């Protein structure tokens, strides 16, 4: 039977699940019995790629060519605040692509986060194929609810590079609620909050669950706040301490940084259970006199909480806003679900309890529940389970630029998908000939802080004084978050419309190039010959299929031969 897998593509760990023959989701374990796989990719000097636990083990010895946290970079600009922070402490180099996107440089080669995510997806797909004993081509992939269109599209592109047909991008908290709520039917209407604090992202979703209908009432979060920030705080503190004591800047020594980072993460995890943790790293580095630094430090829970107090504070305002958007008070929420490894922290659980006036539920395994929900959603889409439906929302306001820099919202955030909204606008100049409608997504009233999605121009407006021409703008968003925009002048009936396909930063041509490269590598390694005859065919195939007239490569404006400008790299200050 054809299976569609559900993939939780996490910042630190990824996980895959599928519906079994009885319609129950189950996690697919790797050949070593691991149920989650570290989202790490490593390149050896010879160009061999390792993914998962093997890559993570190379994090110390091969730190500069071992990449983690690609999800923090995917679909992002290199100059975003959190990206530059991440770059400062990451042992690998983060560089700017020509369009300003954050890429990674490994062995002198620029690599897009999409390609790194594709390696992870490919490895996850292989786990599923080995476990199911059949090829897998279809997947539902989860992303944080707060991801914008570019980040979502970049994730889809990663799927395409991995040879997967990503049938839907699903929000992580929604997936978690689905996995959680699917077992509890007919309890009447329940309003739940899903508090999802993962390795790199924070999401809060307020949902109503009733009779198999999972309706998202509001969603909010911070796509750049997660467990790694807690690690980083400890790491920064220890780097400073080492510098104060020895005048050695560890940030210039990738191997030391990797060891310290691992130790900080381990200490943070230990502090969820114990009151103190010891970090002991002999021979961490050499000081100015060539003597070894044997690092040893005890970290208490109090120290961790002091260092991360402002991070805890940052959890509160998205919760408040989501509750307000849902029109609920904390007491209306009947249950709070915890998702993501970071929610094991007692300090985080205290914040949850304070925000929602109740103790959170701890039934589900926070590392696996998202993948289980994704598998369940795959079942809804393929028709295997038809007693549930999921109603998700737009995470950000959608609107147009008016005046110089103001943002007029046409479709407010938290609108149920699919949806359509109309709004009338009027011309502002006498005899105005045309209007140029620029579409933005974001939550700021200043368009410059939002992300531009596209534009449509309506010309040949009928002459008349300012305000006489009225333009009706209709925005339609489908369940896959594809936008179409129609502008119509009321009197003349003139119309212009555009369908906006979000861009994840890579052009279709760049994606095709990456795929072509991988197909060649693949062919060199293991390309099978399905029928024994005609070995020469494949060459013609490729030429035919990847000819210059390839319709998949319509935009040629990006120069493919120079995907990344050599400089500037962000300064490790």
């Amino acid at each position, binding site marked *: 039977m054809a299976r569609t897998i559900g993939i939780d593509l996490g910042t630190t760990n990824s996980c895959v699940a599928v519906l079994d023959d009885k319609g129950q989701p189950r996690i697919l374990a790797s050949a070593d019995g691991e149920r989650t796989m570290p989202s790490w990719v490593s390149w050896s000097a010879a160009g061999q790629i390792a993914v998962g636990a093997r890559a993570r083990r190379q994090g110390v010895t091969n730190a500069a060519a071992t990449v983690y946290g690609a999800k923090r970079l995917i679909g992002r600009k290199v100059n975003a605040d959190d990206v530059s922070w991440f770059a400062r402490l990451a042992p690998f180099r983060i560089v700017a692509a020509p369009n300003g996107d954050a890429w990674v440089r490994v062995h002198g080669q620029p690599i897009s986060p999409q390609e790194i995510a594709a390696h992870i997806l490919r490895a996850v797909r292989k786990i599923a194929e080995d476990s199911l*004993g059949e090829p*897998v081509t279809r997947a539902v992939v989860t992303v944080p609810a707060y991801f914008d269109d570019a980040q979502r599209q970049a994730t889809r592109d990663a799927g395409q590079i991995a040879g997967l047909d990503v049938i839907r991008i699903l929000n992580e908290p929604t997936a978690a609620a689905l996995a959680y709520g699917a077992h509890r039917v007919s309890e009447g209407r329940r309003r739940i909050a899903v508090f999802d604090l993962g390795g790199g992202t924070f999401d809060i979703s307020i949902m109503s669950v009733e009779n198999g*209908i999972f309706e998202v009432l509001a969603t909010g979060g911070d796509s750049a706040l997660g467990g790694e920030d807690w690690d980083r705080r400890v790491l920064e503190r220890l780097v400073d301490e080492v510098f104060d004591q020895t005048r050695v800047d560890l940030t210039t020594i990738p191997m030391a940084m990797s060891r310290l980072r691992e130790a900080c993460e381990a200490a943070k995890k230990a502090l969820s259970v114990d009151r103190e943790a010891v970090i002991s790293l002999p021979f961490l580095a050499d000081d100015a006199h060539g003597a070894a630094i044997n690092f040893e430090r005890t970290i208490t829970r109090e120290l961790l909480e002091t260092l991360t107090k402002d991070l805890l504070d940052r959890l509160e305002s998205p919760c408040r806003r989501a509750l307000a958007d849902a029109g609920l008070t904390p007491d209306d929420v009947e249950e709070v679900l915890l998702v993501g490894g970071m929610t094991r922290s007692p300090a985080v659980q205290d914040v949850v309890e304070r925000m929602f006036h109740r103790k959170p539920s701890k039934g589900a395994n926070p590392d696996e529940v998202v993948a289980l929900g994704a598998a369940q959603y795959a079942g809804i889409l393929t028709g295997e389970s038809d007693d549930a439906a999921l109603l998700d929302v737009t995470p950000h306001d959608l609107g147009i630029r008016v005046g110089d820099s103001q943002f007029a919202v046409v479709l407010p955030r938290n609108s149920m998908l699919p949806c359509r909204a109309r709004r009338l606008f009027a011309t502002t100049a006498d005899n105005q000939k045309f209007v140029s409608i620029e579409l933005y997504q974001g939550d700021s009233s200043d368009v410059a802080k939002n992300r531009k999605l596209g534009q449509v121009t309506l010309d040949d407006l009928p002459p008349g004084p300012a305000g006489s021409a009225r333009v009706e703008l209709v925005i339609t968003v489908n*369940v896959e978050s594809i936008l179409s925009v129609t502008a119509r002048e009321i009197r003349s009936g003139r119309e212009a419309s555009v369908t906006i396909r979000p861009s994840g930063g890579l052009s279709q041509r760049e994606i095709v190039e990456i795929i072509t490269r991988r197909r060649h590598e693949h062919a060199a390694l293991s390309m099978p010959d399905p*029928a024994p005859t005609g070995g020469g065919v494949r060459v013609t195939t490729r030429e035919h299929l990847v000819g210059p007239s390839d319709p998949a490569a319509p935009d040629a404006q990006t120069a493919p031969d120079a995907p990344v400008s050599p400089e500037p790299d962000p300064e490790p200050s």
Partner: protein
Amino acid sequence: MAEGALSIKLRCASWQQLATIYKRDLSHGTMFLKAATPPAIGTNVRIDLALPSATVIALSGVVQTHVNDPQRGAGVELKLAPIPTGTVWLIESALAAEHKRATTQAIAVPLSGAHAMTGLIPTIGENAELTAAEDDLIKALTSEAESLKKLNPFLVLGVGYEASDSDVRAAFGELTKRYHPDRFARYESPDLRQIAAEIFILIRDAYRRLGDATARAQVLHTLGKHAPAPRAVAGPPRATPAVPPPPRTQRMPVIPLVPAPPAPPPPPASAPPARPASERRPAGRTGEGGTDSRAGSVRRLASEPGVIRPPASQAGAIGDPGDVSAIEALIDHGRLDEALAAYKAITKKHPQDRNLRAGVELCEGLLALAARDRLEAAQRFETALEIDPSNERAARELADMRRQATNERKGLLSRLMGKKEP
């Protein structure tokens, strides 16, 4: 799709079949199709190729030559449009995984040469019933969307004017399970998914407008109804804002566009004649086979004179639009012919009265329904609604017919699904 183009659905049951097709046809940018009566050279063909993993690949091509191969039989050779690299990669990586699996498990059955050639040669007309079922479904959904557009939010959700929050939610949940675009994600036709989304948007908008008591009262007011008597404690306002979304902040932007004042409210529906409270009950019952078929049961009762309180007089006595209630009583008692005659008579006197003209159409529609001419009936009801959007009875009849169409569509759906997942 262009007129005269062919549409073919092709399902690979095994990866070996796909390997054969890929190697023999796709990799050359061609495709051989068996056909007893080959289509003309130059005909456009769309092929939906479903892999064993259920991924559907859309191919398109043009009939290039007619061939008569002794080995493969008569057919046509298509020239395919270039296949996107991403798709090729998807097929190749799946075949590679299958190959690896087969070799490691050593259960691969090598394809004999002859088998490889004939393993899977699609025939034009294969799965034709599937294509047809999809077309039927699109047609049915399109007409449903059209009729939904004419209804007020209560009728769209099929709830009564006195419905509570939980009634509205339950009705919405029911319709969501039936119409949410995710339900249609499994069908490859983009048209089908598009029209499903259109229907769901109508349902969603109705839900938004009725979702809480305050909004509901407003809708009732525009419809000229009174809010139901004592309302239970209203819950807090829902998340979704009322329509149209109010500008978040009041400000006066300058160039090049300014938000115009919101569109004028829809023209107030001409107030329908007041109805007894007992009549305000859930719309959407009945037709043939419904449960609480008031119209139907009255029709049946019409032969029992004892039950009927005959209308005050015959058609001749009805002279002005004020007597509409008398005619409605006739309809209530199933005397459709008389009602029609009465409506026609007074319409002559008041040719501009929309209520009356709609009444004529309504009676015609009810008569058609009694004669089991559903197409005619639906058209009559729709005309009645176009003339007079406040004609509640026509709207209700349409809603009933729609409900019935939904049940029939379930048959269509299962035909499609049954084929897909045997």
